């Protein structure tokens, strides 16, 4: 276990290092400087500004400085908001994103499990068809379309909830629903197929033959065994929510890092783009690592040490 963990953390750091390197050199390929009114500035002034951003040194030195900085939590200075360190931009904005993400994960996964299980138990009835249709719709309708519709009909027409901005719990409801739709549908589909499989297995037959009640079988044997693999889709769901958050945060004007990312892309704020890329990758890698470890712990059939193949 300890050996596995060390190996995984080593790969995590290696991947992080590759991400940093690739993003750094990709950004260096791009044109664009922190100078806004380039024509009006004298060469000496330009040089001063570039020097302030550390852009006068050779690229390899900039790279080393950047890598060293990243591991100290220093991501440079934003091009867009002058004098704002990128690390401050991110740390002040990560809260809303994490909150929304966590809420969306809970709102997506738990109802998804219930709906998926219901579909499997009532297989080939109208309940099953309804849950299947709902999950296909959830997968197919883009989150940003859903977000705009929610915002217009529930926020504006009915006036039940605030249409945008960030203030309290009420402000988080609509973005959370919009973000949760696709994880919900994914989970429901996943649980349904898992559970149909489990319900056909021999130990369910045995449990039934022992004379356990129908719901006893479903709860103690079927549901518990179908829940274990759900851990494996947490990673992809997290990616899903991260992707969604970029546009959902924009639509609902949530001051999160997704919104910041889009803004930085549209304004060529390279230091911020790089930083958000690294933060996103790190978050995903940590989620993947945790889910792998949790999976090994809760499922006795999987032994982490035997994962060589």
């Amino acid at each position, binding site marked *: 276990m300890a050996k596995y963990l060390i190996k995984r953390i080593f790969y995590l750091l*290696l991947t992080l290092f590759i991400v940093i390197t690739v993003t750094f050199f990709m950004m260096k390929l791009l044109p664009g400087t922190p100078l806004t009114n380039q024509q009006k500035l004298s060469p000496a002034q330009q040089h001063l500004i570039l020097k302030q951003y550390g852009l006068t040194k050779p690229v390899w030195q900039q790279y080393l400085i950047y890598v060293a900085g990243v591991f100290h939590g220093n991501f440079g200075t934003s091009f867009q908001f002058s004098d704002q360190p990128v690390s401050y931009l991110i740390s002040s904005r990560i809260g809303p994103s994490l909150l929304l993400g966590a809420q969306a994960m809970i709102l997506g996964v738990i109802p998804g499990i219930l709906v998926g299980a219901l579909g499997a138990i009532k297989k080939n009835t109208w309940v099953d068809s309804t849950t299947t249709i709902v999950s296909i719709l959830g997968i197919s309708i*883009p989150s*940003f379309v859903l977000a705009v519709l929610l915002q217009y009909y529930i926020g504006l027409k009915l006036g039940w909830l605030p249409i945008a901005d960030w203030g309290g719990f009420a402000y988080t409801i609509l973005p959370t629903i919009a973000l949760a739709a696709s994880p919900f549908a994914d989970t429901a589909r996943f649980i349904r*197929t*898992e559970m149909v499989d489990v319900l056909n297995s021999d130990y369910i037959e045995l449990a039934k033959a022992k004379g356990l009640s129908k719901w006893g079988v479903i709860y103690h044997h079927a549901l518990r065994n179908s829940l274990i693999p759900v851990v494996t889709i947490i990673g992809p769901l997290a990616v899903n929510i*991260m992707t969604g958050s970029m546009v959902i945060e924009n639509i609902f004007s949530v001051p999160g890092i997704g919104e910041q990312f889009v803004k930085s892309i*549209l304004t060529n704020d390279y230091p911020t783009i790089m930083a958000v*890329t690294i933060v996103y990758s790190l978050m995903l890698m940590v989620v993947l690592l945790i889910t792998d470890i949790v999976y090994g712990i809760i499922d006795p059939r999987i032994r982490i040490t035997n994962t060589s193949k």
Partner: protein
Amino acid sequence: MADEVKLPADAFEPLDKSKHLDSEKISAPNLTFMQDAWRRLKKNKGAIIAMTLLIIFFVMAFGSAFISPHNPNAVNPQYANLPPKWPGVGINGFNGTLVQAGSRVDAYKAAGAASSVHYWLGTDYLGRDLLSRILYGTRISLTVAVVATLVDLLFGVTFGLFSGWKGGRIDNFMQRIIEIIMSIPTLVVVVLLILVLKPGMMSITIAIAFSSWTTMARLIRAQTLELKEQEYVLAAKTLGESSIKIAFKHLLPNLSSIIIIQTMFTIPSAIFFEAFLSYVGIGISSPKASLGTLLNDGQKNFQFLPYQMWYPAIVLSIIMIAFNVFADGLRDAFDPQSKG
């Protein structure tokens, strides 16, 4: 037990040999793998409806390159923001009227349009025909998605086959590469690539292809690992067949169902990505249009001219639903034992 039955020879009547030759034969015709899958697919009503819808959308989207009610890029400021109007239909929403400041007005009259002028799905803020724009946008969206998927398929299948076939250290190394790519959020990769390659159809296609091949490669590798242990592969090897030939003649045909199913699931996610990027503003740039840019344009006027967003949204959703349902049906048809 004791009494013996004696039968004279003429109690037997010889049968016509030619008639009963086939009595032992199994009567169902031999079906190839594809025919078998098609037979199962036909039973799935949802999948057939989805397939029909997809064919209709493809024909309309690509046919509109030749026959289109209007030029999708023709700007006509005089007729800007006209709501849908169908000749001879009086229902609100299709008669060219709009609710403005609490009362219904005939937008066509207000724009001074002749009574013969009608736009089936209305016009956008520059007076471009929305129906033509949607057909055009669907064409771009589908092209990007299909091309990206083909590139992804080519690369993913090759990578997976090679990795699985070689095994050992090479496989290990190639799997590490995939793991690294997979632990970077797809969207981030796509955005970085688009920034470097400059927004446009080409870069968006490359970016989507580049970031989605890993799943295909993993599936193909896992299956190749299994297939290469099969007797027929061993036989081919023993007979001195080259690796490339084994890959084409033995492995690929056996991988075809996985490839087809995975392709059908990749296309809708590529459509989604394209729409997403164009919606955010880093995808297709004007005057080109895709479903994503149309949604983005429509969303700005959603409060007053809801039809400008509703129609692209409906088209996008139907295409996504159809692809997902069809892919589900294909999976069941190709692999009846699969989960689901």
